[in-house]
């Protein structure tokens, strides 16, 4: 019984640390990536892996069945609302006329009719 609880604690702490590391890395990515579109890719790490690992870690510490169910529901809600909010954000940026910073190659979707693109890059 003692060792089972210990293994559970170690697993739970490992997951909590993985989740925290994912959130910190997502924060670093937010600063390192150049524009709103690529920054959403960085924030996706905390939205998915961060949330998943932290909630699974907490699930292993859940004192009762009821608490565990609620944690699973929180996971479900965050995994649905996260991408929905991300999509709303990038679509708003796109409609507003913000052009992405692209890598090599042509940009088939470049719009030049609008001269006031307010990019905060470079």
């Amino acid at each position: 019984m003692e060792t089972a609880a210990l293994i559970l604690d170690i697993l739970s702490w490992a997951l909590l640390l993985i989740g925290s590391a994912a959130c910190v890395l997502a924060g670093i990515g937010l600063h390192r990536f150049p524009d709103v579109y690529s920054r959403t890719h960085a924030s996706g790490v905390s939205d998915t892996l961060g949330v998943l690992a932290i909630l699974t870690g907490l699930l292993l510490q859940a004192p009762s069945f009821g608490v565990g169910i609620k944690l699973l529901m929180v996971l479900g809600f965050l995994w649905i609302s996260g991408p929905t909010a991300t999509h709303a954000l990038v679509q708003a940026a796109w409609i507003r006329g913000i052009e992405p910073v692209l890598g090599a190659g042509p940009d088939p979707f470049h719009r030049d009719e609008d001269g006031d693109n307010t990019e905060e890059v470079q």
Partner: protein
Amino acid sequence: MTFRLATLVVLFSGIWLLWSGYFEPLLLSLGAVSVAITIWLSLRMQLLDRESAPLHLTWRFLLYVPWLLREILLANWAVIGLIIRGRGAISPRWVVVDGRQHHDETLAILANSITLTPGTVTVDVAGRTLLVHAVDAAAADGLLSDDMNRRVAALEVD
């Protein structure tokens, strides 16, 4: 319609019981009232259609989730690598995905799956065509392999 209504009554009651965890008569009757009001409001708002309550997808969707979970974990690993290597490592590009789905609810599942996977974000939709921003060539290639598109289309019964 009756089947959808009955399923939702059972589903809402189950959720209420799981969340409350109390089984006294007073609280149970309050739960029954809550379920009744929720169903009534949903009917009034005409929310009980295939799009907002896609019950017909349930079992296939549950089989799709483990595959999506694996994709998300792999994508996380890739994006974390890019974050560590910094701005020079990324090479953002546009990807156009022609959805193989015939219904709006499955197209929405595809768009949300793409956004949920780090490295790809659905920016816009026109008809069945999704405009996706990918962080680098690997993320774009993963999407262009059409694996996710096919799997989401396979969720459709009709």
